[in-house]
Structures are given as C-alpha cells and as structure tokens.
C-alpha cells in the first residue's frame, strides 16, 4: 500500500488549495504515444492527459474510473474547454497506472472516490488543455512568421492574420517539437463547453453492448473461476475433497488459495457446477461466534458507557443532567453490502516476470501494489487496465484488494489467463460492508425551542482499523470516517459532545457511498424531527440560520417549513436534515 495516503479524507480536501497551485504537467506519455506510434500516426502528446493526431483526433486520457458518474465526459470537457478543439473529435481512453495519474489531492495514489473527480482535476486538466493550445498556436505562428498574439484557436482550428487557418491535425507534428509552456494562461471570457449540457461520450457503447466491463474481459485460452469461500468471516479450509467436482465436464482444476477453494473451468457454468460438488471441511475460527444478537448486546452495552471524545463544545453532559425535558433516542443501522450491479470479478494473466490485470477498479495503485506483493513482482511489472465499472460505491476501492488478490493467487497456481467471477451470492456474502452502527443520542432545548445540548455516542467498527490506512486516518483512537457527519455537524449547538467506541470483530467493513454521512444523515435528521416542538415551527427544530449556512430547503430565514420544497409536510419523527457532505 502506498505510503502516500497519509491524509484523512477531510485533510485531503483541506490541502487541495495548496496542492492545486503546484501542479506540474507531466511531459511524457506512458502508453498513449505508444499506441499512436504503433498506429503510424504522428501525434502531439504535450502531457499525460492529451494527444492530438494528424487525423484531427483528440484523445483525452482519463485517470478516473467510470462507474456511472460520467468522468469519461466531464474530464475531457475540462481539457477541451481550454484546448479550444472540436468537441466532436474528442474521444476518451482509460489511463494506465502511473504517477502522472495519481489523485491530484490524495497523495501518490490513483483512486476514484470521495466525489472529487471533477474538482480535483479541474486545475490540472484545464492547464493541460491550455498548454496544448498555446503550443498549437505557437506552431501556427511560427509557420506564418507572426506573433502568437495575432493568432487564436477555435473549434480545432488556429486562425491567423489574413484569414489564414491551420487545423490542429495539420499543426500536431510541429507542435510536438515545441517546449511545453510552464505557466500556460487560461482562457478568459465565457465558457463554451463547461456548464452546458452535452451528451455523454460513453453512452453509445453502453447501450449497444460494446462497453467492456471487467466481467466481459476475455482472451483466448482464458479459464473462468468461481471460489468456494468459508461460511464465516475469517474461516479457513481444513480439508477438501474435489473428486466429484473434478469430474464435471469443463472443470480444469481445483486449487486452494487463502480465500478458499477455487474451481477453474472453461466457463462460468462448469465452474459453478463444480463448486456445488466440492466437499469442504472448514475451520470456522473465532468468526463463528459472531452473531447479530450478540453484537447488538455488546454495542448497546458500549453505548451506555462514555467513549473517546471526538468533539466537545461547551458541556453537553452537565447541561443534559440538569435539563427538564430530555430527548433520548437509540438508532441502529445494519451491515449493508454495496451490491454493485456487476458482481465483483477480476482478470489476471500472470507470467514469470509480468502480470496483466483487467478489472473495474477504483483503487488502481493499491490493487496493483497488492498484486505485485502477492505475485512476488515489482509494482512496475504489474499492468492494471481499468475497464468500465458496473457500479463502484466504494466497493471497488477495497483496502484489502480482496478480489484482485484472490485472482492473482489463482493465477499463480493455474499458469493460464484466468477470470474470477463472483456470483451475486458471493458478492453479498463475502463482504465488505458498511458497518453496523449503534448510536445513542440525547438532546435538550432552550426556552425558544432551539437545541441547547446534544450528546451523540457512536458504536461501530472503524473501516480503516487493521488496514494500511489506519496509522494515517485514526488519530488518538478516533477514525475520522466513524464520526464524519456527526463531529462536524453543521448545526450550531452550544453544548455538543460526540463520543466514539470502535469495537473490532471479524466482519470486513469498508467505506461506502458518502461514507459517514450515510448513517448520520438519518440519525441527526431524525432526532431533529423529534426534538422540534410540534405546530408552528413544523418538524424542523434547527432552522438554517442556526447553522450560519443556507439550507437547500430554505427559502430564507423566515421559512422554516420545508413543505414548499418537499411537496409534503413531513410526519412527526420524519425529519428534514441539513447535510454538508
């Protein structure tokens, strides 16, 4: 795992302003230029994100994983806006794993997450487009023997004095010989592409069946694998009998790996049939004692005792002790699987000195490094190609790279290209999950019905405990993501205390869409609904002006009832929260 991820999620965002100023344009192109050279086309590759062909093609290399959010359109738009190219010529390509493609704010790691793709790439890609435009203009100006100020680029054409015109394709070869400007100037004036609705560049492939997701990857001679995993988390294979499984036509071999027993076949169906006939004795280990009722009891017990303090303003405990009327509520949210539509899968072609992985990953550097570690290779010997992702939700940014590691382990034993496919049941049962949470909240109001004190005690597993992210993201025992949305609530409450218990157990947990805000929106909003006095104010007791911010549901300071925006009046106990995520 990269040591670079030494910032918490919140710190990542805080440092963005600093990082943004020092971005450099990378000056070589790991694979784009190679492809173009192979195609025999002269190419202008001013940086890692862009190449322009003599055929007028504009290819944007996208370093973010496409999982529905549209990065194969939005990120090309950032470059195209500054490049002043013809949008109809723009295509996209998934980037390889290389330092040039690391997250612009998250340290040396290639990752898609945290709703950061556009905002983190805005400056870098805008500058990349501007630099290329300046080079194309310089190339034209040189040819015409005029100053660059006398030229302008528009829609893929550089225009010069006297109606002179040269297209980007005509200029590509010359521009490629020019130095890359160190401080390109961004365009002034109105945007031509940004802010306008455009059709997605990836939609045609997604509706005609040609978009390649990880599960669609195939090469000649590839074998398909399904894995029998232990019935409890942390379980191990004690012994197994594969005689019947091996007899299934199409089953090629049965191998044991850390995750369980892998059935390798010439297709998914024989692999699945073979798995059904495996006879496995499991060593279930300590995980066998974990149960939902036992955890609820443990968590409820912890919720009754003070935890580590994640935030303390004023003295909520003392104020609550003296309060006339206290609102006390306990909330539980269950483990939740990410359940992407495309079940997890991973293709691996392992050779003695190289490893090719094709999968839908949100966490390319981590996955590549994990594969290298498992295969005994150097990271640079591992190539990871990112396919389309049939949903991510954080599941494909796995701290343990589980679905990559298990595929590499199978490949080490099979010596042929393989693709592991999880069934839907595998995908749901094998983890990871949003943690189960047990929360206890207490609040009291002042004479005006505004919250005076608010105590929130949180019980749930840390999603980074035991991972390489723990040392960076857990401070003084507090995992920032465990209290995200609670300790940094936007509500202005004079006496606020947030406490945390982080029990550990065998259930694998992971970040998920919106991370801490996923459970806390419910808890804070719902309790807000309860504490609000019925009647005049409606069920929103903490109006936006109490937070010093504007709520999306507010029409102004006097409008405390969100009915006009919601279209209905929330019932008692059905709160309207104010989130800042």
């Amino acid at each position, binding site marked *: 795992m990269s040591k670079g991820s030494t910032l918490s999620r919140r710190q990542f965002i805080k440092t963005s302003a600093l990082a943004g100023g020092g971005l450099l344009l990378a000056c070589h192109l790991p694979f784009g230029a190679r492809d173009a050279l192979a195609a025999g086309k002269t190419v202008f590759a001013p940086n890692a994100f862009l190449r322009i062909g003599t055929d007028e093609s504009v290819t944007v290399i996208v370093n973010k994983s496409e999982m529905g959010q549209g990065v194969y359109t939005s990120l090309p738009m950032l470059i195209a806006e500054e490049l002043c190219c013809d949008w109809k010529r723009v295509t996209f390509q998934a980037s390889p794993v290389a330092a040039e493609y690391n997250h612009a704010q998250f340290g040396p790691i290639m990752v898609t997450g945290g709703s950061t793709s556009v905002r983190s790439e805005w400056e870098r890609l805008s500058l990349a487009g501007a630099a290329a435009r300046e080079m194309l203009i310089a190339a034209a100006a040189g040819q015409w023997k005029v100053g660059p100020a006398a030229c302008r680029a528009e829609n893929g054409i550089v225009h010069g004095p006297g109606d002179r015109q040269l297209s980007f394709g005509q200029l590509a070869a010359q521009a490629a010989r020019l130095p890359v400007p160190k401080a390109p100037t961004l365009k002034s004036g109105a945007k031509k592409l940004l802010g306008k609705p455009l*059709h997605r560049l990836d939609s045609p492939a997604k509706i005609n069946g040609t978009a390649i997701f990880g599960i669609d990857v195939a090469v000649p001679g590839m074998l398909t694998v399904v894995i029998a995993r232990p019935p409890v988390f942390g379980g191990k294979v004690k012994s197994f009998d594969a005689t019947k499984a091996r007899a299934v036509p199409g089953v090629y071999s049965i191998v044991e790996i850390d995750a369980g027993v892998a059935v390798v076949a010439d297709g*998914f169906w024989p692999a699945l049939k073979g798995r059904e006939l495996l006879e496995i004795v499991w060593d279930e280990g300590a995980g066998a004692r974990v149960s939902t009722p036992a955890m609820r009891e443990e968590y409820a017990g912890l919720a009754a005792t003070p935890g580590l303090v994640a935030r303390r303003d004023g003295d909520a405990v003392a104020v609550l002790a003296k309060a006339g009327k206290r609102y006390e509520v306990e909330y539980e949210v269950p483990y939740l699987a990410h359940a992407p*539509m495309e079940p997890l899968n991973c293709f691996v072609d392992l050779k003695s000195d190289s490893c090719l992985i094709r999968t839908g990953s949100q966490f390319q550097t981590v996955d590549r490094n994990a594969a290298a570690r498992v295969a005994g290779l150097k990271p640079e010997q591992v190539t990871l190609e990112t396919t389309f992702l049939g949903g991510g939700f954080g599941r494909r940014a796995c701290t343990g790279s589980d679905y990559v590691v298990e595929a590499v382990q199978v490949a080490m034993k099979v010596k042929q290209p393989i693709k592991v496919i999880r069934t839907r049941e595998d995908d749901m049962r094998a983890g990871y999950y949003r943690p189960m949470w047990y929360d206890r909240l207490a609040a009291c109001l002042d004479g005006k019905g505004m919250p005076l004190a608010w105590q929130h005690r949180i019980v749930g597993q840390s999603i980074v405990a035991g991972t390489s992210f723990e040392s960076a993201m857990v401070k003084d025992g507090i995992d920032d993501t465990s209290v995200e949305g609670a300790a940094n609530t936007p509500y202005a409450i004079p006496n606020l205390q947030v406490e945390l218990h982080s029990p550990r157990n065998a259930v694998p947990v992971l970040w998920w869409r919106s991370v801490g805000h996923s459970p806390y929106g419910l808890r804070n909003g719902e309790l807000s609904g309860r504490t609000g006095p019925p009647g005049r104010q409606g069920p929103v007791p903490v109006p936006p002006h109490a937070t010093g911010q504007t709520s999306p549901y507010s029409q102004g300071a006097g409008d405390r009832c969100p009915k006009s925006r919601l279209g209905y009046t929330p019932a008692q106990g059905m709160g309207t929260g104010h989130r800042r995520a």
Partner: protein
Amino acid sequence: MIDFTVNGKEQRVDVTPETPLLWVLREKLGLTGTKFGCGEGLCGACTVHIDGLPQRSCITPVGDVQGKRVLTIEGLPENHPVKRAWLDQEVSQCGYCQPGQIMTAVALLEKKPRPTDADIDSAMSGNLCRCGTYGRIRRAIHIAGGKPVPKGGKKS
C-alpha cells in the same frame, strides 16, 4: 449439439443443454452485451428476446432454445427508436443494467406502442438499476413510443 439463431445468424453450440443461454451467449458466442447480475432471473440484466418475447437468459437452459430465434442487444439496429431515445435522454449511468432495460423496453413497445406510466412500471419492474435511472427510463420509453415529452420533463 444445439442449433438456434442469434441476431439472425444460425449458431450451433456443443454444450450441456442445461447450461444457461446467458453463458453460451457471453462465453461461446462472444456476445457480452447481455449481462450477469444475479443468476436467478431477479434483476433483468440478462434479458434477451426468445421468439420475440423478453426472457431471462440466466435461467433459460440453452437446450430450451433449440430451433428458436434469440435477439440480444447486439442485434438491435443502431437506429432503433429505443436506442435513440436512450441517447436522447442520457439514460445510462454506469450502464451495466441498460442492455437488459432496453431489451425489456423494446418488447413492451412491440406489444404496446403507446404505453402508459402504469404499463411501463409494470413491464419494467423486473429490471433493477443500482444507479436509479428509472425516471429517465420511463421518459425514454415514452419518447420511443412517440409520445411527446417536454424538454427537461418532470424527473421522477
């Protein structure tokens, strides 16, 4: 040997007859536009037409399509009104479920060219979308059926 036609082309495959059609399409014929989502006929990602009717290929033994006509997303013409409407409305997000959604929508419109919202909800209820594109799916089906929908129409 099992003989059937896929997208108008005759195919002969040598697999055990209980093998689901889905895996024959994907692995033997290289037609990976039809997706695996659940393997139980519950999510609709694997929807294809068999003799004109939408079917879940993940639970259809290939032996059952002997002599029948199978249509997959790859066999739908590029200019099909449903595909055009899908592009117009930018229905796809991650896109994984969309081939199945489209095949179900095509079958609905063949049966009922001007469906109501209720018709659409009923016909499409077996096709899950984890991104939640249902509102746009409904709009696109109305458009493909020729019903004018105001630009930026009501989102649902």
